[in-house]
């Protein structure tokens, strides 16, 4: 059955390869594919799965790519597939073409295919999946669903997967429904037994139990961010469905159901509104935060565009708000199911007039959780909108990360809120008065005191005591105080993380967000080629002083990002007054996640062009 086995020697790899499943949307493949991924994790081998899906619901192509990497590389590898599980006739040609030479093609050979549909430089593995399931099941839905488990069974034999781990996962997935567990286990063995009896098992790609997963957890960034919002004390979520952010609001709904229902009264300590549009979403967030609740919205680029006017109001009237922007490829509708880091500038300078906003760049689900909880403290402390910039790559894919932690003694920082007692004691209240010299004024919640502390919140210009004013000096003083407040934010946002190269170097690279794992891997690839880079991962805006120092300490700094225009680089040039010639763009923007191969090739090419004298040669 190994059709070209005599002619092609297949790739030989252990715990280091890429498997891609080509499926039809809505065929129930997702749960079998997740099972495949998780059972490898249970073998102690790190994997990173990615959903690749067009903007459709049913009947169209969808892919699930799993990178297996005992070395722990979590970024997309790029450069072709080692094993293609081709279950979608629609995409057959492109799927077969995407296999690397010496790679493997797994397909359903119930119906014979002409030799012209195959390649001569790959190993072809046919399993009569339809025939097997048609024989075993009578209902068409069962035939369809179990086909997925049957191919998983066959793969378990071909790749030497640990079968008890798969069975354990099935038992966990269908806990309490023993019949379902038994039926799935039976289907699994149906595929496995067929493969063992009819095929050479294993193939050249094999899995071996390892120990490099550790205590890490496996979670989507959107879910982790939603959990961070629960831990951070958010009570109001107003949102409008938009890919790739919807699962964040849905996860918040799920976690609130679990953690935020009063056990005695069965009443909810949360309110989630699916608003009529993004304008209403951010309006509700601002209204709730003005009134002292912690509130957020989740959206993507088009939503950010729609929220611009309200964001300016929140900035100018100084109202906390947390906005999760799960970025996708723009402009306009762009590629709604593809990843990019493309809203940096539209968030940093959102709205008309002079504005600057705080941005956070989580690298993985762990930081999605941490920064989400932090963002509510920052919003209250700074009384301004906070943008959490995720992207589809982190938001919608399960990713290995450190276990989430929470310090029991941690308190919410509600910022400067004047209380009834303080007002009663005669403490002077001026809504826009810079009492402490940090640019942050005191606020009061509506309804605090019968006669003191009430003020009028407005988008128009006002004086220090919130009274309408069109006087130039009042306006200028206020705008300058807002700048001072933004400067205060520098010390509050997560600091950048610097990492020195193994050898002294004049070259540096700045990166952020989901680029992290690809950059980590690229660092090693480049070092092998003799190119050493000091690295700085930026985690927030406004930029910390360390960012400017880092750039100053290097002759050339590569700014690696996933957009066309080098938006972070623009922000660095603009805000830190850096000579643009010092910052070299490394840009990936085709909608797929950035890879180590891309980064290392791009940097190696540019180093050649730049003719930078390696540091070690300059030193005697």
């Amino acid at each position: 059955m190994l059709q070209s086995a005599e002619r092609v020697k297949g790739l030989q790899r252990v715990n280091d390869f890429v498997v891609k499943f080509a499926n039809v949307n809505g065929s129930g493949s997702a749960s079998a594919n997740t099972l495949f991924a998780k059972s490898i994790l249970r073998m102690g081998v790190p994997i990173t799965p990615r959903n690749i899906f067009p903007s459709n619901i049913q009947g169209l192509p969808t892919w699930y790519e799993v990178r297996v990497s005992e070395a722990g590389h979590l970024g997309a590898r790029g450069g072709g597939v080692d094993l293609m599980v081709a279950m979608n006739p629609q995409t057959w040609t492109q799927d077969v073409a995407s296999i690397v030479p010496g790679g493997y093609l797994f397909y359903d050979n119930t119906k014979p295919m002409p030799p012209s549909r195959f390649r001569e430089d790959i190993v072809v593995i046919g399993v009569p999946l339809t025939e097997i399931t048609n024989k075993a099941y009578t209902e068409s839905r069962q035939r369809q669903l179990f086909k997925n488990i049957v191919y998983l069974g066959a793969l378990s034999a071909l790749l030497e997967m640990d079968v008890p781990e798969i069975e354990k996962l099935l038992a966990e997935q269908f806990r309490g429904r023993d019949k379902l567990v038994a039926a799935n286990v039976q289907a699994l063995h149906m595929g496995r037994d067929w493969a063992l009896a009819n095929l050479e098992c294993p193939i050249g790609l094999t899995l071996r139990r390892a120990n490099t997963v550790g205590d890490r957890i496996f979670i989507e960034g959107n879910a982790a961010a939603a959990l961070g919002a629960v831990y951070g004390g958010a009570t109001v979520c107003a949102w409008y469905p938009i890919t790739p952010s919807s699962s964040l609001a849905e996860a918040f709904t799920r976690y609130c159901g679990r953690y935020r229902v009063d056990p005695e009264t069965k009443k909810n300590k949360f309110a989630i509104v699916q608003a009529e549009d993004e304008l209403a979403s951010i309006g509700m967030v601002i209204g709730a935060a003005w009134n002292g609740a912690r509130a957020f919205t989740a959206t993507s680029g088009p939503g950010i565009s729609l929220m611009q006017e309200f964001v300016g109001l929140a900035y100018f009237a100084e109202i906390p708000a947390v906005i999760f922007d799960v970025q996708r490829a723009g402009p306009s509708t762009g590629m709604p199911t593809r990843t990019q880091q493309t809203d940096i500038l539209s968030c940093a300078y959102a709205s008309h007039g002079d504005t600057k906003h705080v941005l956070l760049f989580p690298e993985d689900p762990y930081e999605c959780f941490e920064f989400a909880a932090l963002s509510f403290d920052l919003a209250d402390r700074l009384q301004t909108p906070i943008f959490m910039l995720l992207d589809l790559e982190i938001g919608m894919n399960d990713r290995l990360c450190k276990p989430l932690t929470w310090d029991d003694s941690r308190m919410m920082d509600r910022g400067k809120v004047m209380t009834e007692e303080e007002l009663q004691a005669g403490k002077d209240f001026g809504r826009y008065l810079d009492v402490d010299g940090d640019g942050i004024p005191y606020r009061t919640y509506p309804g605090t005191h019968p006669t003191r502390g009430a003020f009028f919140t407005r988008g128009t210009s006002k004086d220090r005591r919130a009274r309408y004013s069109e006087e130039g000096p009042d306006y200028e003083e206020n705008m300058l105080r807002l700048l001072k407040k933004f400067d205060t934010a520098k010390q509050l946002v997560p600091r950048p993380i610097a990492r020195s190269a193994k050898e002294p170097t004049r070259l540096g690279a700045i990166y952020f967000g989901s680029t992290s794992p690809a950059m980590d891997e690229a660092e090693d690839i480049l070092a092998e080629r003799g190119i050493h880079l000091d690295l700085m991962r930026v985690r927030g805006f406004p930029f910390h002083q360390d960012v400017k120092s880092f750039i100053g300490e290097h002759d050339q700094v590569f700014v690696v990002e996933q957009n066309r225009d080098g938006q972070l680089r623009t922000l660095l040039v603009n805000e830190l007054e850096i000579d643009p010639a010092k910052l070299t763009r490394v840009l990936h923007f085709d909608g797929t996640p950035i890879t180590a191969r891309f980064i290392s090739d791009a940097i190696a090419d540019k180093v050649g062009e730049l003719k930078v004298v390696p540091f070690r040669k300059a030193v005697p």
Partner: protein
Amino acid sequence: MTFIPKPKLHHPELPKNALGYTRRDYEGAVSTLCAGCGHDSISAAIVRACFNLELPPHRIAKLSGIGCSSKTPTYFLGASHGFNSVHGRMPSVLTGANLANRDLIYLGVSGDGDSASIGIGQFAHIMRRGVNMTYIVENNGVYGLTKGQFSATSDRGAKSRRGVENKDEAIDLVGMALQLGATFVARSFSGDKDQLIPLIEAALKHQGAAFIDCISPCVAFNNHEGSHTSFDYVREHNLAVNYLDVISGREEITVEYAAGTVEMVKQHDGSILRLRKLANDYDVHDRIAAMTYLQERGAAGEIVTGLLYVDPEPMDLHHHMNTVSTPFNELDEAALCPGPAALDKLNASLR
């Protein structure tokens, strides 16, 4: 500089309500609207209604959008927190505020441009969600701040001050509010405070979405012949179906009325709306009949005013969302944060 504080000179014998407040304690800064503006009469009616109801001013939150009407919250309830938001988006801000603290009284003030044009989406959705609030549209059929353009509530055939005829059909916010499930719907006229003040009182006491469309002539741009929103036109075409009195549960009702002329509507909080009926056939509890009646009278050129629909036992957004009785802004870490043990358990399930 357009902020004009009011002189704090009080008449020594100004009557006080049960809280010890005088009417002046419910006022705001001096109005900067045109002399004779209908909106100022509505502000005065709000002041009077809050005084009559003995509401603590600081427990009211007043919110508005953008426009002449939306400027008015500066001119009443100076001891209340106010929020002048963005054009057409007051409903979302009010909804969020209401979710954060269910214990305050929410008063939304908007105009016909703010609610029927740019903000019609948010207007519709706040009504259908049943947010507990009083939502007043100060409806003058014209854009005042930008000097006299037609608004979406202007009647087809109405003429602007320069004689231009409006060709577009009018949007009737009362009809929309009825259709979308508001539980208190009224229309009134800024020139009729006997009708307006009790309507505002009743709306403030209503525990659901209360909407008042208040026709409020614009003396600068829409009070001429040919306008359908001028003082003269509204007086000539006003068909008041009822007048009401709001009676707190404490007061004893002694006067008796001829059968069919008065209806007592008991509210959820024990207060009573005493409806003095002018149109005997009008039933304030029949939403569908109300819509038909409005359509019929509207086609005959009449402007129906009064309490048009009320549900004495309304359900609001908090009810729909099953939220706790404690305001969200008072919930602390213990109430909100699941803590490290729950996280450890969750971590274990994610391996």
